[in-house]
């Protein structure tokens, strides 16, 4: 892109002056159809157009709902993942937030704190399905003790391992704790293979992969700088720089790079989510998934996936009916599970064999109850994420010791916490 182009794009994002976002507008959700009866129009935004399979799943859900609710017309706008947040911010800034949008669960506080979302507290507190969801999933739709979203679909990360390489190294079971993981990774590493691969890129993907290690060490974001965070940093540093069980390339690898490396048999283990299944299945080897090895603080993983955010100008009653319908597994199981490659997020679906759209789902479902939401850190999560990945990069690249990096992060994190 040349300079002007980029400047224009950047500025457009800043000022929300473009008219690119077509169709979607909140506000007036009722319009007269030709028969004279009221037909409710619901504008719907998502980024599930990334694959034909996910795109079709969403369209199938919409069709099913429209067929069973003749009075409702859903107007879907599929937006590219890269533009989604920017478009939504723009829409929020101009008061044109769609009636419902499937947003990343960590973005709830950003939009809620802007006042762009409808307060669903009264609906949610009496909702029969509420208690069926895992506690962290319910927590992810809350901000400031109010509800600003409805759970939709979830996923998380876990440990994938190459069974063939395990056999060759004389290992039979996946590692259960940090010490075993480190020892196994070392054993699996040779001139051609890395024992363990993960993303430590200077983006949210790096933070998404490192946060669980902080939690597993018994630490948390607000207490960065404590011994637990130093332990987590020391641990990854040992994997990469001391044992060289993980290649230094992790510093530039995103999750899909890691999936490709694992799929091509170059990595014996990786931390990743179900979304890299496609790359892994290209490999000609036996593999399986196991929950994250536990640290001092037990096991933990990051909560991924989307929740429904409702625009503050939406016809809340009509939208609520829709989200309630979507939440019922009887209506949406196939589309959400297999169609969107999700992991069950309800207590009543975790062990449901019908949810096992792939054998690997079992391990992810086992991990799911310990999946923690990132939105709990408030509306400045994007900046918090930068502090976390910078800290990890400083250690892995040798720029700072774990102690110094954690101490620097501690100073940066304090003003970013809280609700404003």
């Amino acid at each position, binding site marked *: *892109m*040349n*300079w*002007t182009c*980029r*400047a*224009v794009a*950047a*500025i*457009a*994002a*800043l*000022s*929300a*002056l473009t008219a690119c976002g077509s169709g979607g507008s909140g506000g007036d959700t009722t319009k007269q159809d030709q028969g004279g009866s009221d037909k409710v129009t619901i504008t719907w935004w998502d980024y599930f157009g990334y694959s034909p399979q996910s795109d079709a799943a969403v369209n199938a859900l919409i069709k099913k709902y429209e067929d069973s609710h003749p009075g409702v017309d859903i107007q879907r706008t599929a937006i590219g993942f890269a533009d989604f947040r*920017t478009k939504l*911010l723009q829409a*929020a*800034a101009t*008061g044109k937030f769609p009636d419902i949008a499937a947003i990343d669960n960590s973005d709830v506080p*950003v939009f809620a*704190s*802007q*006042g*762009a979302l409808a307060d669903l507290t009264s609906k949610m507190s009496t909702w029969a399905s509420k208690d069926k969801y895992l506690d962290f999933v319910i927590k992810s739709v809350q901000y400031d003790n109010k509800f600003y979203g409805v759970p939709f679909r979830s996923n998380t990360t876990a440990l994938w391992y190459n069974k063939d390489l395990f056999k060759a190294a004389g290992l039979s079971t996946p590692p259960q704790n940090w010490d075993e993981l480190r020892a196994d990774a070392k054993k699996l590493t040779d001139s051609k293979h*890395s024992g363990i691969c993960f993303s430590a*890129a*200077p*983006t*949210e993907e790096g933070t998404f992969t490192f946060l669980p290690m902080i939690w597993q060490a018994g630490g948390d974001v607000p207490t960065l700088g404590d011994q637990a965070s130093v332990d987590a940093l020391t641990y990854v540093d040992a994997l990469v720089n001391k044992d060289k069980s993980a*290649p*230094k*390339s*992790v*510093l*530039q690898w995103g999750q899909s790079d890691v999936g490709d490396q694992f799929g091509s048999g*170059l990595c014996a283990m990786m931390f990743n989510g179900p979304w890299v299944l496609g790359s892994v299945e290209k490999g000609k080897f036996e593999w399986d998934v196991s929950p994250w090895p536990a640290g001092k603080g037990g096991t933990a993983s990051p909560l991924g996936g989307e929740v429904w955010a409702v625009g503050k100008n939406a016809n809340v009653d009509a939208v609520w009916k829709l989200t309630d319908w979507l939440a019922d597994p009887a209506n949406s199981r196939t589309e959400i599970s297999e169609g969107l490659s999700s992991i069950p997020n309800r207590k009543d679906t975790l062990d449901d064999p019908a949810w096992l759209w792939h054998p690997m789902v079992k391990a992810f479902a086992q991990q799911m109850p310990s999946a923690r939401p990132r939105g709990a850190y408030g*509306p*400045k999560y*994007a*900046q918090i*994420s*930068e502090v976390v990945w*910078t800290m990890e*990069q*400083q250690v*892995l*690249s*040798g*720029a*700072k010791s774990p102690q110094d990096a954690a101490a620097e992060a501690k100073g940066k994190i304090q003003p970013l916490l809280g609700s*404003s």
Partner: protein
Amino acid sequence: MKPETTFVKHDASFEKGTAPTRAAVPSPKRRGAAARRALTPYLFVLPALVYMAGLLAYPMVLNVLTSFKDVTAVNLLSGDGQWVGLENYRQALGDSQFVDAAVHSVVYALAAVALQLLIGLALALFYVRSFPGATATRSLYLIGYAIPIVVSAEVFRWLLDGRTGFVNWVFSLLGLQHEPVYWLADRTWALPAIIGIQVWLGIPFAMVTLLAGLTAIPHSLHEAAQIDGATGWRRFRHITVPLLRPTFLAAAILSLIFTFKNFDLIWIATQGGPANASEVLPTLAYKLVFLQFLFGKGAAVLNVIFLVLLVLSLLYLAALRREEDHAA
């Protein structure tokens, strides 16, 4: 500028032809016509002006305004981003991340452009002679230029990989390397590696431009000098260098502009990492605006980039003008 002068000339001849009948007393009607005629050239320029105002001036002014406000995702909606004056700039300039990125940007642009011009010049001097296969091999260089940066950057990520990369394989084959180097994941090597990729990307442009400049130097000058007994070096020094200077300057400034604002290459190769070792101003601005939603601070960084590019563009225009003056 040129089209306008043509209009005036055209108008003048029209005037001359019709003057006897119309020139006597300027009736109101006549004045209207004159006004219309005076307006005509501006009307022709109007679409271009509207385009520039809407798509260039407006966003630029807005960006400058944003850079003086504390605009973040949280207050984007309310529009009550506080007017903070120079605070964004003060913060940005006082931030070690910004200072590092600025230094990297300058080192990256200068080193890459110097190297690509040097190699481009050598190649141009080589290809200016005609030899069998010259045209064919010369056009091969353009393939590199035609490949989208996204693709070449991905390819280089693989080539420079620490474990499976081709570059390490060659180095170890030559016995130059004992420990694998993770070029793009190494604090010391990330920026030099990026400069290397940029040089590869920039050579075709430098070569083609300089080759055009060399071809434009009349052959007779070289012949005359040769007859006078000038050696190859002296001919290069006293004919090629001064006559190639304008082209060289233009190529240098244009390459500097391209390189300084380059974002895709760095973003794909390292995303500014590891630990900001290859962070340049464009990647920093992108991170501030699109990943952290710090619109005000991001706008301040963008304006710094803009200022640098503006100065470079003015230099380029000045160089062009001087060249035109010489030609005239």
